[in-house]
């Protein structure tokens, strides 16, 4: 079972250019900041929006092929779509919402399938309630039950947890994962939260400004994001413009007036440098060590966050952020070290 998508679409100035495949790994996270084209991609897969050109295939079935003029209507795609706001029919009860989507099934089996789904998603007690009478979690479970009732071959989740507050989020995320575990087909999970992607999906694809990066696994993305957008989503705080240093194996950071050793060889197309870990230098260390002025220190829940200014930084340059596990807040002048292996060259 796999879903392959290779589409282009223009929307005014915005250009969507997505190339993804779930491969054998069932769940794929589509990761990106808001406005990067995540929802548009899902809508193209589900058949709600029409791509300009390209190709969509689900489990050997062609859903869309601009070359062969194939464009299946949403009804025939068998792609379940969980909308951000769930889109339950407000004029129907929970049971009616689910039963309406059982029409693909033989009549004799509908009754028992409805009961099965109500039990599976723990909605027996709510079967006769209307969507407006349900909690956020119950609404989400109803929407999922309705999708499962329609017997899809793939499921798309459009920021499934964004409509909820953080307390509920944890609980619902677990419930969602559990409910999806039994689903045999590909699942595309759209999110802007790296943690969410990591907990629920094995594979990930970063979408930035409508362009998709190659699909990779999460550990690889975290270890080497490759692009600025991916690095930002991976939680990198220090991202600065960079150019090759005078000697081989060095890079220059003009903003901070620094030249550092870098483990990765320089390659064409590099635009920025990501600093994975910044820490105070220990005695005797001299390589990649530089003095910084401590500008301010902010206390986080379990750590300290320091804004530093490397000596020799240009006026108006962004600060260098350093996270410390706690202890005495640093002040004055501080010697700081970044390991050459922690300098990542990004496109």
């Amino acid at each position: 079972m796999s879903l392959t998508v290779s589409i282009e679409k223009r929307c005014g100035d915005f250009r969507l250019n997505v190339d993804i495949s779930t491969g054998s790994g069932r769940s794929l996270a589509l990761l990106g900041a808001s406005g990067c084209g995540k929802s548009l991609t899902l809508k193209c897969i589900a058949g709600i929006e029409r791509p300009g050109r390209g190709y969509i295939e689900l489990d050997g079935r062609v859903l869309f092929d601009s070359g062969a003029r194939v464009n299946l209507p949403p009804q025939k795609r068998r792609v379940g779509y969980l909308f951000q706001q769930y889109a339950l029919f407000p004029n129907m009860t929970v049971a009616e919402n689910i039963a309406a989507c059982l029409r693909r099934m033989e009549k004799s089996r509908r009754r028992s399938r409805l009961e099965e789904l109500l039990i599976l998603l723990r909605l027996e007690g709510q079967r006769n309630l209307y969507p407006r009478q349900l909690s956020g979690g119950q609404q989400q479970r109803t929407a999922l039950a309705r999708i499962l009732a329609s017997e899809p071959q793939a499921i798309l989740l459009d920021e499934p947890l964004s409509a909820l507050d953080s307390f509920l989020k944890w609980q619902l995320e677990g419930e969602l994962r559990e409910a999806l575990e039994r689903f045999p087909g590909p699942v595309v999970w759209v999110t802007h939260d790296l943690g969410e992607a990591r907990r629920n999906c094995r594979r990930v694809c970063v979408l930035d400004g409508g362009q998709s990066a190659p699909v990779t696994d999460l550990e690889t993305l975290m270890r080497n994001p490759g692009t600025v957008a991916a690095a930002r989503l991976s939680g990198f705080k220090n991202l600065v413009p960079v150019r090759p240093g005078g000697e081989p194996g060095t890079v220059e950071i003009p903003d901070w007036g620094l030249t550092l050793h870098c483990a990765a060889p320089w390659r064409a197309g590099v635009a920025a440098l990501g600093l994975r870990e910044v820490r105070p230098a220990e005695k005797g260390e001299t390589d990649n060590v530089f003095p910084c002025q401590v500008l301010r220190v902010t206390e986080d829940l379990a750590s300290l966050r320091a804004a530093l200014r490397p000596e020799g930084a240009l006026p108006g340059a962004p600060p260098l952020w350093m996270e410390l596990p706690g202890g005495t807040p640093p002040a004055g002048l501080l010697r700081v070290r970044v390991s050459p292996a922690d300098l990542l060259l990004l496109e």
Partner: protein
Amino acid sequence: MDWFPLYNSLRIAAVSTAVVFFLGLAAAYYIAKVPPMVKGLLDMVLTLPLVLPPTVVGYLLLLALGPRRPLGAWVLDTFGLKLTMTWWSAVFATVVVTFPLMYRTVRGAFESFDETLAQAGRTLGLSGAYLFWRVRMPVCRQGILAGTVLTFARALGEYGATSMLAGYTPGRTATISTTVYQLWRTDQNGPALRWVLVNLAISAVVLLAVNLLERKEGQGHVFNREH
């Protein structure tokens, strides 16, 4: 008292409301999907009868349907049917005059309809017809009902275009409004007043119905927003 005008007004209003109900729904549904330029133009043309004097509408209709006019003459030659001066000639007049009321009210209701419901429905395998009749219609129920009641009320009271197309023949084409005019013209104030009272009673009932529907709808909106 001869109740024919009441009966005639009711049947004209009922037939034209039935026609306008489906025409208005179809127009509101399909015009929402056309490009903005075309939409603006269609919108203007379809709303025109609402602001034109009914006598102008009647005049324009006679230009098309009169026995010596192209369409009227053709129907007369082919089917032996005269399109004017019968009771159902008034239906042409009331359909054109009341259409904008239905169209605009339903369009308003459709515009506030959450399109993701229809999109979700389609991904769930539900047909367009199912989604229209079982989701869009029930969700927009109150707006559609209000439009229907308004259409019926307006058709019931239509005078200008009706009198031009159907004329006034007692027992054949007379409606409440043309009867009131005829009675007043011939100085029969007593009977005229009786018909005026009948008309007032009907209008009061209709307005009450519209108000009830609108109040319900208002509550529905507040309820939805809070949840």
